[in-house]
């Protein structure tokens, strides 16, 4: 399958060009739709107004960004470390996989975000509640993706490693992690995305600071350009995280999985 793709004729526009065009189109639509009155300005603010607000409200957004960034960073640690370990262990130990994994994913099915304002009665309204909420929101997908990936590991390779005396740790890092890399990366992506969402939504629902707080505040006050500037910041955060994951992915992808090898 992959081999015919490489044989295809060179596309008319390069990937970068097309991405640029799309982005330009998107921004143009973003600018024109509200300006032309096709979309009410309380629903979508023109792009230029959004950017302008970003510059003028720099002093408000910068500290909020720092708050949010810190919360996300801490949330990522919880999600990645906790989720990765839980996923690897639950995925590789059959008994646990059969008993606990279903419970774990069922637990995730409870829409905690719906009762978040009540949850914070217990975990408090400070940054720690955002960190925990975001962390747990991202932990589950990370764990589930990792556990699913572990099932894709070739049993024979684990057998070979065990016969050579690989410890549990070595089995994980030498066999399971490389073998489950696509799954792990997906876990990092999903988990990371949900940590960001968890933190920002938590801020939106109940907090005194952070990008999410600003988004809600500006939204209830109909200051749409500010709302979209907040969204833009979240997009940039997401982009940054994705860039890092991409780097990590390229660095860690075993050569046999690269396109050329196929």
């Amino acid at each position, binding site marked *: 399958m992959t081999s015919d793709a*490489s044989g295809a004729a060179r596309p008319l526009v390069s990937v970068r060009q097309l991405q640029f065009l799309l982005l330009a189109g998107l921004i143009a639509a973003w600018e024109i739709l509200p300006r032309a009155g096709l979309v009410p300005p309380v629903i*979508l603010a023109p792009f230029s107004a959004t950017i302008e607000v970003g510059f003028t409200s720099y002093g408000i957004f910068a500290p909020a960004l720092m708050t949010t960034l810190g919360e996300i960073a801490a949330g990522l640690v919880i999600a990645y470390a906790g989720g990765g370990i839980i996923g690897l262990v639950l995925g590789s130990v059959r008994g646990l996989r059969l008993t606990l994994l279903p419970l774990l994913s069922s637990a995730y099915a409870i829409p905690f975000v719906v*009762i978040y304002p009540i949850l914070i009665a217990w975990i408090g309204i400070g940054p720690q509640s955002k960190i925990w909420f975001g962390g747990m929101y991202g932990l589950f997908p990370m764990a589930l993706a990792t556990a699913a990936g572990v099932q894709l590991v070739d049993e024979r390779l684990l057998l070979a490693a065990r016969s050579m005396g690989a410890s549990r740790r070595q089995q994980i890092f030498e066999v399971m992690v490389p073998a489950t890399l696509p799954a792990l990366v997906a876990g990092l992506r999903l988990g990371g995305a949900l940590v960001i969402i968890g933190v920002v939504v938590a801020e939106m629902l109940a907090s005194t600071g952070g990008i999410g707080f600003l988004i809600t505040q500006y939204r209830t006050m109909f200051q749409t350009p500010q709302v979209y500037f907040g969204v833009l910041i979240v997009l940039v955060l997401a982009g940054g995280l994705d860039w890092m994951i991409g780097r990590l992915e390229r660095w860690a992808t075993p050569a046999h999985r690269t396109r050329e090898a196929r």
Partner: protein
Amino acid sequence: MTASPHSWRIRAVQFGAVALVAALWEFAPRLGLADPTLLPPFSEVLKQLVTLLSEGSVMKDLAITASEVALAFAIVAPLGVGCGLLLAENDYIGRVFKPFFYFLASVPKSVFLPAFILLFGIGFGQKVAFGVFQAIFVLVISTVAAVASVEPELVKLARAYGASRARIYAEIYWPSMLPFIVEGMRLGVIFSITGVVFAEMAVARAGMGARIATWGQTFQMSDLYAGVLLVSLLSITVNEALRAYERKVGKWRG
């Protein structure tokens, strides 16, 4: 591997774990470990749940939410997997669009609710559309990862037998990707439910989300927990169905 002799033990352990949580929930407020006004004992919530179930109007709301979720999932499952396949298989399209998907995945979808109201109104369609929007990213990311784990040797084999693209997807990709896709779908269901409920909470004429929002606002805790429990049961049911399917089809993994 099949209905193994261990399965009853697994069930027992799971049942035990659930019972433990229920017991904790029951006794924490009763023993003063948790504030009973914030966390009514489990039995009270259960009682409330039974009351709700006997109320026609709540059942109607539940039915509405369930049908919104069902439709959203019926749309998003093939759509998400299809997009994921396209992104993973077509190098060009993948390189162009993957970043867009990856970025949008991390944006809290609720900020787009007004746009959804503009595009789809405030009725059934908007809930479905928002449910789709919430879930599609998870599915796409899972599918892209699942494709990466398909054994190229087996694809080569199928090609040697002249298998069409569709056939290769059905016979090689699907079984290989299954644990991953099913995991993605499970998350997908959960996110469509969250999406639908969230959209209903913001604005609705009916639906469990609207109920839950009102119960929350007016501090009707037993109703609120019962409602959340009801929605959770809905998604756990779908979850278990998917899991059963995966177990059945994925037996070969042992």
